[in-house]
Every structure is written in structure tokens, then in C-alpha cells.
């Protein structure tokens, strides 16, 4: 369709209801694993899918749906699929700003990262420092960051700077298993493991892409210090997905639904099982918003202790928080009609354009902030959503850089301690829960994030604002 937009017609595979659309440069497309093509066209076969099955520039193989996949379904005739959300429900990104200049922070990065590392537990089986009772889980997972604000665990303006105002409506804790609640209740404020991280970053003056747009988000000078958080719903969300995959597999036999891949298990959104999963998944999504909120509170505390100023005077406001593993009911215009659709974004980010009522008022004129996390070596980006995304992709764009190398291979290529030393030489202080985990997340194991971001910008479904360079990293 263009040098960054490719289509696979419905004739490619029997059963495709809609074409598949892939956003990628020729280079990214050539290097994309073959699983993406197979999976994006499998998703195109699911009942009730609208317009296209999409794969973003960072797409790679996932369970059932590709990571970097987007699919919208008719809310009456379409399906809902746990595989279209992922195990880590509402894995997402949060970006907070400071008014500090890197020159003020450079000599304190180690102290800062070491302190955050003690305040934000990371790694295998960790428990959070913020204790809640199981009896509070219903309220917490219904109201998300709004609940936090009501309990002095968030600043007044935090909720509006979170996707969906800090909580997705439709949660019902009675649809969540006892095991999921038990797994999650002690995990608020923990980073987790795998590719999750917390990073101290600076606005990169060499790649300061749109200063006027950046000002809208309070980014006003070169080398401004920021903090980015990447994590999700921890054991709570993982268990919700595990539980409902089981329910869906048996339910599909009853509904006579056949799919090309066991991981594509899906049921009508209007079925009892479909509604139950949605209610439980929303609980998990709201859990993740709260998890990231508790982490932000700890980050504010750490900055305040290190710089002997309160977090308000450091201007540590939340720029935004976006989900990148979720399914949500949204209203979109396609085929000339306003329709409610269930948009699955798995490893993909909402990218609503200027004027959309769901964007907080201060940003409504410019578009929704889109946070794209890169590998810990290569940096990250802040973008904004566009009108073209509303027209083409149900308001969606990419989420990160996407893996290209297995964890085992990455560990063969580099040792954790060696990587840590090399990163320090490059001005990035890393504190990792495990050295093996650090090696697995080396930059070489990921796609070139700049090419991913460039692709989405050229396709017009999100627009670059600033590049962010890591100076301190906590690896789960």
C-alpha cells in the first residue's frame, strides 16, 4: 500500500474474514519472523473481526495473536480472546517528568537507582511494601488509580493522566479466582521480571524531535530528567489469563468454534464466559494501573530523599500511563458508521488523535501521549496519537522494539556482569535482580527501536515527540 504499509488479501488463507495489514519498512518486514504472517492471518479468520487484522512494526511471534497485534471485533457478533490480550494483562508504560537537569542528577544516579531498587522490589517471587487486605481487592480493582487518589496514594491530577482516567469500567471481582487474588494481593508496587524495567532517562537533545509538542507535556529543556516504568498486573493478571484460557478451551467446544491455533481460544463477547472474562480482565487491568501508581509513589519518595526536595517542587507529574496488553470497548467510525467495537491490543498502544474526548483536557489539542519503550541500551520515545490512527488502525500504534533473539542466545552472546560494566562505561548505571536476566535483555536481542518509531511516524499513525536516553536502569 506504501513503503511502510503492506496488505495480505483474504485469498491468502481459507477462512480469512478480512485482510491483514502490516506496518513495517521493507527491512523490518524482511526480518519479521514468519510466525507474524501466520498469526496475523489466523487472527483475520476469527468471527466478527472488523476491517483488518493488524501487525505493528515491532511485531513478533506470540501465543495465538502476534505481539504487536491489533484486532477489533463487533461487540454483538464478534469474539473476545485471552490470547489477544496476553498473560500480563495491562502490561504498560508510565512516564513521569522532573524539572531536574541531567547535570544535577549525573553524580547521584547510582544513589538514586540503588534507593529505588530497595523501594521497588523486583525479581522472582517478590512482595510489595504496600500491604492491602484481600477484602480491599474488589474496590481497588474496580476503581484503580481513582481509588488510590481517594486513599492518598496518588496526586489529584494522576488519574486523568492514566488511560481511561485510571480505571476501566466493568470490573467484577467475583469473576476473579481465589488463586489470582492470593497471587496479587501482596504484589502491589513490584516490578516483576522478564522485560520489565524502571529507567531514569534524559531527554536526548540530539534527537529532540518536536520541541513545541514536547512543551505540551511539560518537557521544556534539553537533558531534562524523566522516569519510565514498564510493568503490568503481576501474578493477578497472569492467573486471570491462565484461568480463562481453561474456561475458553472447553467453552469453544460448546459454541462449535474452531480456531487454527489452540492459543487463539475465543468465545462470543456476548456469551456468559466472554462477559466473565472481560470483567476479570478489567480487574487485572485496573490492578496494573494501581501497581504502576504505587511504584510511582516510591519513585517520588526516592527523588525527594536524594535531592532533599519534595516531589511537587521537583514537578514529578505523571505525563501519561498507557496499556499495551488489553481489550477494551471503544467507539470508532468505520465504513461511515459510528460503532462500538472490542479492540484487542496485544503489544500495541492506543494512539488517539487530537480532539478525542477520552484524552485528558490538557492534551486534547495535541493528541494522546504514546510511550514506546526500547531496550535498556537503546532508549525510548514519547510520541502522540494522530487522526490517521483513528481512521486506519482503531486508534492504535506500536509498543516497543520487539525481540529478535532468544533469551538463551542472548546469554550466549554476553554475560550479565560484562554487559553491566559496558553500560556503565556508556553512562548507564544498571541494577539488576539477576545477572542472567540482565544478559537476556541486552540491546542486541531487540529490534532497532528508532526504525520501529520511524515506521509508525511515516505511516502517520503516531508522531514523534522526544527521544529519551537511559542513564539509570533497574531490571526486574
Amino acid at each position, binding site marked *: 500500500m506504501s513503503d511502510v504499509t503492506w496488505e495480505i488479501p483474504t485469498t491468502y488463507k481459507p477462512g480469512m474474514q478480512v485482510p491483514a495489514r502490516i506496518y513495517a519498512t521493507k527491512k523490518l518486514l524482511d526480518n519479521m519472523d514468519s510466525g507474524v504472517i501466520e498469526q496475523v492471518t489466523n487472527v483475520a479468520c476469527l468471527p466478527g473481526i472488523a476491517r483488518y487484522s493488524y501487525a505493528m512494526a515491532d511485531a513478533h511471534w*506470540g501465543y495465538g495473536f502476534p505481539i504487536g497485534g491489533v484486532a477489533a471485533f463487533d461487540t454483538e457478533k464478534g469474539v473476545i480472546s485471552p490470547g489477544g490480550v496476553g498473560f500480563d494483562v495491562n502490561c504498560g508504560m508510565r512516564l513521569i517528568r522532573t524539572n531536574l537537569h541531567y547535570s544535577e542528577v549525573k553524580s547521584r544516579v547510582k544513589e538514586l537507582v540503588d534507593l529505588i531498587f530497595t523501594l521497588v522490589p523486583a525479581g522472582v517471587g517478590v512482595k510489595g511494601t504496600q500491604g492491602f487486605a484481600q477484602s480491599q481487592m474488589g474496590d481497588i480493582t474496580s476503581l484503580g488509580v481513582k481509588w488510590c487518589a481517594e486513599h492518598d496514594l496518588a496526586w489529584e491530577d494522576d488519574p486523568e493522566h492514566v488511560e481511561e482516567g485510571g480505571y476501566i469500567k466493568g470490573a467484577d471481582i467475583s469473576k476473579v479466582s481465589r488463586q489470582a487474588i492470593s497471587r496479587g494481593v501482596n504484589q502491589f508496587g513490584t516490578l516483576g*521480571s522478564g522485560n520489565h524495567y524502571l529507567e531514569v532517562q534524559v531527554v536526548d537533545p540530539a534527537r529532540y524531535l518536536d520541541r513545541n509538542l514536547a512543551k505540551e507535556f511539560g518537557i521544556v529543556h534539553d537533558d531534562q530528567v524523566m522516569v519510565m516504568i514498564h510493568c503490568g498486573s503481576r501474578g493477578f493478571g497472569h492467573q486471570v489469563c*491462565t484461568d480463562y484460557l481453561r474456561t475458553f478451551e472447553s467453552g469453544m467446544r460448546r459454541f462449535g468454534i474452531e480456531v487454527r491455533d489452540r492459543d487463539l481460544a475465543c468465545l462470543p463477547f456476548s456469551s456468559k464466559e466472554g462477559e466473565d472474562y472481560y470483567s476479570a480482565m478489567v480487574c487485572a487491568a485496573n490492578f496494573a494501573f494501581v501497581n504502576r501508581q504505587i511504584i510511582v509513589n516510591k519513585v517520588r519518595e526516592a527523588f525527594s530523599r536524594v535531592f532533599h526536595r519534595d516531589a511537587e517542587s521537583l514537578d514529578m507529574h505523571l505525563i501519561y500511563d498507557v496499556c499495551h496488553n488489553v481489550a477494551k470497548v471503544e467507539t470508532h467510525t468505520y465504513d461511515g458508521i459510528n460503532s462500538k467495537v472490542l479492540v484487542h491490543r496485544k503489544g500495541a498502544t492506543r494512539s488517539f488523535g487530537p480532539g478525542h474526548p477520552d484524552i485528558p483536557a490538557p492534551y486534547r489539542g495535541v493528541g494522546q501521549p504514546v510511550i514506546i519503550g526500547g531496550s535498556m541500551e537503546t532508549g525510548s520515545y514519547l510520541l502522540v496519537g494522530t487522526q490517521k490512527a483513528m481512521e486506519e488502525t482503531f486508534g492504535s500504534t506500536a509498543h516497543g522494539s520487539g525481540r529478535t533473539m532468544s533469551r*538463551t542466545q542472548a546469554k550466549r552472546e554476553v554475560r550479565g556482569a560484562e554487559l553491566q560494566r559496558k553500560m556503565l562505561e556508556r553512562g548507564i548505571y544498571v541494577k539488576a535482580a539477576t545477572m542472567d536476566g540482565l544478559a537476556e535483555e541486552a540491546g542486541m536481542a531487540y529490534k532497532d527501536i528508532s526504525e520501529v518509531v520511524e515506521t509508525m511516524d511515516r505511516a502517520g499513525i503516531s508522531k514523534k515527540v522526544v527521544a529519551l536516553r537511559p542513564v539509570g536502569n533497574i531490571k526486574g
Partner: protein
Amino acid sequence: MPFRYLPDVALADIAFEAESDTVDGLFETCALAITDIMVDPKTLRNTTQREISFVSEDLDRLLYDFMTELIVMKDVDSLLFGKFETKVSPQGTSLKAVATGETIDRERHSLRNDVKAVTMHLFGIKNEGGTWKTTVVLDI
């Protein structure tokens, strides 16, 4: 080692294949593999025992539920296990197991990856020439 990692199966996650002459042995091997992913088992002491028993609809589900239970105990009770004794019923629908291990100690244990979940990808138990085999892909 009765299990073998499969680095090319799931780029972002961890897969292994396991085999044993017996169903009980296959369950124990899968459990040990999950432990090996989360911690260097040589750093684990066997000081705490837990009895695990449940019923599932078939042998595949029984193994899936057993592995999930180990992940749940890691999160809920902070327990990791280095030794397992399992007994699967002849029908393959019920399990009694004793897991021995200890509470996570961040100073003493050499911890590795946190396992989020067992996936259904490529999952299933086969008997080939008298050997019980399975492939397991874990979400990391």
C-alpha cells in the same frame, strides 16, 4: 538432564522438553525444570514440605494444573522446591505430590527468571515407544 531447553521455540519466553520412563517421573521432571528456570537448584535447601493433591479432567490438564500450582505457591507463599515425589492415578486424572524446598531467600538463592504462567502452546503429553514426553512453553 531429563529436560532440555528449546531456545528457538519462543523468543521472548522459555520452552523445554521433558521425558521419563514413567508418568510420575515426567511430572517430577517438569517440576524440576520450572524450579531450574527460577533458581539455581544447587542453592536451594530442602527444609519445607508441602503436600499437593488435586483432580483434573485428563492427564494433560493434570500436568498443566500441577505446574500452575507451583507458580502460584511461588507467588503466594514465596516457596521454591528442589525435590518432588509424585503419584499420578492410573486413570491419569488425580495427583498426590510432596514438594520439598524452602522460602525464597534473596541473599542465599541464586534467582533467575520469574515464571508468569504455563502456556498451552505445543503442550501435550505423548507416549513414544514407552517413553513419556512433553513440551512446555512458559510465559516469562
